[in-house]
């Protein structure tokens, strides 16, 4: 990969992160991160869809009539999302049930339309693909961070495996209780806020004057 492509890749991971800098895709970031596994599947699905939506739109960019380009983008994105949904239903049925409507709602995730409109229509296929994948990964990193904290403190497990020993719990005579607030979306928003705070403190140039 050339230098420029590396920059396309690294930007969305931190300084141009879609979730914590551009504040896009918050809805699903709050909805599916109560546990690590659905968060991971969601992140992977979004990454696949952004990468290929960018690739396909970049390949089509010279032929798309500009008057209907938004419709074309929606068709391409919806096509990929339905494909992903079908694959999830076939191979990870339980996770697909947990994600329920949120897989379908990837279509409305602002990151997708944003990247296609702002990047893929003006760049060659390979850089577009990298940009899409990087934005998906940038989104995924935040989802995994949220999923990790929420599942660990909210359920005492990680990826479904028990981390905090049963014997510690109050009902078993211990001293510990799960924090139920972490299972609710508002706490995820607070966590996103904390991540943004930490991120901006270490990247002073992101702070608005």
């Amino acid at each position, binding site marked *: 990969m050339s230098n420029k492509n590396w920059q396309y890749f690294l930007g969305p991971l931190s300084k141009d992160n879609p979730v914590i800098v551009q504040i896009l895709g918050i809805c699903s970031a709050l909805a599916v991160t109560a546990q690590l596994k659905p968060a991971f599947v969601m992140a992977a699905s979004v990454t696949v869809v952004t990468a290929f939506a960018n690739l396909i739109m970049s390949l089509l960019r010279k032929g798309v009539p500009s*008057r209907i380009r938004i*419709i074309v983008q929606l068709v391409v994105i919806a096509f990929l999302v339905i494909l992903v949904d079908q694959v999830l239903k076939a*191979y990870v049925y339980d996770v697909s049930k947990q994600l329920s409507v949120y897989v379908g709602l990837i279509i409305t995730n602002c990151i997708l339309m944003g990247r296609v409109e702002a990047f893929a229509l003006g760049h060659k296929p390979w850089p577009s693909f990298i940009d899409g994948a990087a934005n998906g990964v940038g989104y995924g990193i935040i989802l995994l961070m949220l999923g990790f904290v929420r599942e660990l403190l909210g359920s005492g497990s990680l990826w479904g495996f028990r981390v905090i020993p049963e014997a510690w719990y109050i009902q078993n005579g211990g001293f510990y209780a799960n924090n139920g607030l972490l299972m609710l979306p508002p706490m995820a928003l607070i966590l996103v806020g904390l991540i943004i705070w930490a991120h901006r403190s270490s990247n002073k140039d992101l702070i608005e004057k």
Partner: protein
Amino acid sequence: MNKNSSTYIIIYSVVMVVVVAAVLAIAAMTLQPIQNENIAVEKKGDVLASVGLKSDNIEADYAKYIKEVSVPTADGELPLFESNANGKKLYIVPVNGSGLWGPIWGYVAVEGDWSTISGVVFAHKGETPGLGAEIVAPSFTDQFIGKRLFEGGKLVGISVLKGAGASRGNDHAVDAISGGTITSRAVETMISTTLAQYLPYIEKQRNNE
């Protein structure tokens, strides 16, 4: 060629939609068998759960404990399951109904007297998360255990009552879900209408005892 002419736009949209539809149709048909398999396994898991078996090996346990029988009626046959898990004979009636947004269904396991409920499982297609969707939660379904469907030889079903604790001491009622009134009522209707179809068979069984 003028990319913004109406002819170009129409041809472009038609070709795009046909291609996308064709690919999606192929994908859906290829994955259909695997998806149906998942749904069948889930159904078996629900049947097992209604008799209180949480299984890791659904297929094997289902084959071991559950017998599929059918109930002849005036206009066809109705499905029924019998279970002999834990040395106790239970009948499992599949129930179907419509909730607020879409179908709801479930399995009601009754004891040999055809009246005492030993366990229920409910599922839904798209009830409101946190409200109507709570019909699947143990906090709702556990209430049904030990309730009676018959009163003095007459089918009365299970009513849902408003207010926490409203059903205390009532053998034929459970507490409704607050904020999920329509779905709760739908559960009530689902159980009574489905069981009404089985009534001739049930009465024959009860008289034979």
